[in-house]
């Protein structure tokens, strides 16, 4: 059974076709890299997979279950998590509260108007563990607004990992990071166990190629090349469209 399967996905904004018949099969535990120029439809593909954009035609399957019509929140409960290209955190809250909110999203406790959130020790412990995993436990009580860009990127990943997803979509996790921070985040992503399937969009080929097992090249909303790392890098179309001759 595939972890994530996309069949004939189509999406248009008015007369502009942004995704045209995309097919994608990602095996359990795979590390898949999605590459393509700006405007190739990479983030749109993620938005279609998570349900944040509605699909014109096609299907999305998560571990064999057709989730095409499932709302975004339901997909999160089924094990699909993502990070955002543009950091999307809760700026007035602490790092701990950000990760706690992520954990709470999958807990029935989120409907409780009587309990005290900061006394839910099991959630606090799990949130601290997730922050520790990304090396930010010492900043747990600091508001997001007082952290660096690199730390925020890591909080994004901590929030996604805290939900213990089966499939994790990472949208340009290295964007805006220094060389040193990129190394840290790469090591962090490399440490994610194999029971989590990862699909990542990334422009930085140096770090991305180190991560990828299979690569999909998108161009104007269509899959142009797909294969192993070596196959895609050597493919003439990749050089023509993406890497440059």
């Amino acid at each position: 059974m595939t972890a994530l399967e996309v069949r004939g996905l189509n999406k248009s904004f008015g007369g502009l076709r942004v995704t045209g018949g995309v097919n994608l099969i990602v095996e359990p535990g795979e590390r898949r890299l999605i590459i393509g120029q700006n405007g190739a439809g990479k983030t749109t593909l993620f938005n279609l997979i998570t349900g944040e954009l509605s699909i014109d035609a096609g299907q999305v399957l998560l571990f064999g279950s057709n989730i095409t019509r499932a709302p975004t929140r339901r997909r999160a409960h089924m094990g699909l998590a993502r990070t955002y290209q543009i950091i999307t955190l809760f700026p007035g809250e602490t790092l701990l509260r950000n990760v706690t909110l992520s954990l709470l999203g999958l807990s029935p406790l989120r409907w409780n108007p009587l309990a005290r959130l900061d006394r839910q020790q099991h959630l606090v412990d799990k949130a601290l563990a997730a922050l520790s995993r990304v090396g930010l436990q010492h900043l747990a009580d600091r508001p997001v607004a007082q952290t660096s860009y690199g730390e925020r990127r890591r909080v994004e990943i901590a929030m996604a990992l805290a939900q213990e997803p089966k499939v994790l979509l990472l949208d340009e996790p290295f964007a805006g990071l220094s060389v040193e921070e990129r190394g840290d985040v790469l090591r962090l992503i490399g440490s994610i166990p194999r029971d989590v399937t990862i699909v990542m969009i990334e422009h930085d080929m140096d770090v991305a190629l180190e991560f990828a097992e299979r690569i999909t090249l998108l161009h104007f909303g269509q899959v142009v090349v797909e294969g192993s790392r070596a196959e895609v890098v050597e493919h003439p179309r990749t050089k023509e469209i993406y890497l440059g001759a």
Partner: protein
Amino acid sequence: MKRIAIAVALLILATVPLWIGNSFYINIAAQVLIYAIFALSLNILAGYAGLVTLGHAGLFGVAAYTAGLLITSGHGQLVVALGSCAMTIAIAGVFAVLALRGTGLGFVMITVALGEICWGLAFRWISVTNGDNGVTINVRPHPFGFSLESAEAFYWATFAVFLLTIGSMAVFVASPFGAALRGTRDQPRRMTALGYNVWLTRFLAFLFSGFWSAVAGLLYLYYNQFISPEAVSLSSSAEALLMVIAGGSGTLLGPVIGAGLVVIMKDVASAYISRWNFVLGAIFVLIVVFMPDGLVPGSMRAWRWLNSRRVRTPVAATATPAIEVADDGA
């Protein structure tokens, strides 16, 4: 320190009738508490959910009119209270279903329209609401046999309800649901991706807010023993929003301070200043310019700033002689 300040504030509020003495001012204090409850209910939506509504007086009016009509048709106080709250929560549900279809300015405009429908019904459905003449009740309730006819008794009853309101708000805000609601205000898209049902979270917040609007509406009716379309109008909704914004939306104390400011300007300062609404407008402009988050968060920021200056000053004082010694030595 914070607990001591809260205890002192509660003690002052609890003893208002003892040290004010004058019935007129005790009644003003009761009005402040009624509007504080109303503003706190609006704060759930405008402050914690980020849903700025200009139709909330509609819910306040539904509660007061329902209670007034039930009382005039001879129902007992328990039926009146329960019926009024149930009707208001139901209407709040209708408001939510309709208004949550819009976002931003669209949401605001839908709430304006819904509030205006309520006002229109109060004003034009004369066979039921008595139109412009409003609904009058003859007596205040006697909960557990206690008469609320005197200004002091009514104030203490209102104060007890106010304590219940602010206590329930504090619990709500600190709860997982309260945190989720704030999350839907700050990052609704992210919240959906994290597994939250943003629409249902907001809908339930609407019902909770509707309930406390009903409580405020009931107290308003009992206080005035009269309800007219004026209480349901757009200006009443705007006034409540002004209380929330002026005091500080998304805080527990802000709407209470805002209610105090507006009620005192309207009912006390108006006796001395004929253009009191001009003064209120000027105060609001000053708040927006100098404390855009509202009086409570703005005052807290100013206090922190003053404290930080006080801490820095001794350091500068000790540094100066050190330089002088060095100069002498040279």
